[in-house]
């Protein structure tokens, strides 16, 4: 191995992961002063890295549960809004299909009507006018309405089920928060009691 290859592999050797090349590396280091110097420098960097401090952290569990509950509540609100939007769109569609609304452009006018569209009148009527054709009279209209209605019911049941699940989760989390709070209160009271006892003992020691 030459010096360039050895230096590229030195970090792996120092961290004990230069397995297949290890013998060759040690052999080179035995003879090469420059590479040995590099090896010592990198070993010293490894030791230096251990001097970085490590902060002591205690996760605040009540705060964690509170954040979880807040997120669940936000998700529930978002889901309700989405369900409401879908419901509104479904209602509009139902209204349009139910009343058999149709829109026609005729003689520079936009006509909105419901029920069956009137038959074209006289030769003046323009058969090539773009018309949003009503679906009234088609045999599958009733079927479409039934499917739409089933869809809305299914969506509602789904929304209700999710609401129930979210509520149950929220309940569980709130119980956790309450339990942790009462535990913290008990600890606080015990500490207060201990401090008071210590204070009493200290003051007795000062004034026998």
């Amino acid at each position, binding site marked *: 191995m030459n010096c360039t290859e050895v230096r590229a592999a030195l970090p792996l050797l120092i961290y004990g992961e230069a397995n297949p090349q290890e013998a060759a590396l040690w052999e080179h280091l035995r003879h090469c002063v420059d590479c040995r110097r590099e090896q010592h420098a*990198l070993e010293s*960097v490894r030791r230096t*890295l251990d*001097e*970085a401090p490590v902060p002591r952290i205690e996760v605040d569990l009540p705060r*964690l549960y509170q954040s*979880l509950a807040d997120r669940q509540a936000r998700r529930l609100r978002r889901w309700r809004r989405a369900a409401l939007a879908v419901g509104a769109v479904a209602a509009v569609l139902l209204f349009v299909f139910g009343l058999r609304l149709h829109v026609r452009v005729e003689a520079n006018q936009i006509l909105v009507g419901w029920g069956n569209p009137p038959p074209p009148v006289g030769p003046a009527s323009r058969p090539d006018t773009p018309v949003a054709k009503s679906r009234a009279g088609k045999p599958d209209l009733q079927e479409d309405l039934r499917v739409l209605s089933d869809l809305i019911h299914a969506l509602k049941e789904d929304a209700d089920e999710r609401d129930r699940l979210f509520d149950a989760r929220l309940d569980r989390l709130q119980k*956790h928060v309450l339990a942790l709070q009462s535990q913290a209160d008990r600890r606080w009271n015990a500490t207060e009691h201990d401090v008071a006892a210590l204070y009493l003992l200290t003051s007795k020691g000062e004034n026998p």
Partner: protein
Amino acid sequence: MKADLSWQDGGAAFERLVRRWQQPVARFLFHVVGREDLVADLCQEVFLRVYEQRGRYRETGAFTAWLYRIAVNVARDAGRRRRKEPVELAGAEPADAEPSPDAVCEQAERGRIVAQAVAELPEPLRLVVVLRHYEDMSFEQIARLLGEPASTIKSRFSVALGRLRQRLRFISDHLTEPER
């Protein structure tokens, strides 16, 4: 290590898990993010995601890898949020200014300089150094965790160590044994 994250016992298991892993996760986040004031919040975020994503954890997989993957994502998100902020530790001196000999002798000062040097590495290099040196993962484990080839991880590690050598030479020189 595998873990049961069904937590049927009303959260006690989750609390045990938090107590068990809070320190390793905090250490990892501190070395990656480089700011002690952010660690508590980021640690909290990691365990929030653990709780929320427990359904996605497969008991056949290693729990440590899954947890660290979440921690890496949280650290990356934090890095993206504060990309415009300069990396700066409380009361840090300019990176190039060599501290006085007295300061070099002070353990806290040295620790601060080391943490800063690690925090100033580009993110891909920093992650590899932190996972290999501080979390003691093998290059293979790091490669699986970050979804990169092991050869890439190894070359990143070599580059990172070279840069740290330059940045920390004034500390390391005190530790280098004289060449015989």
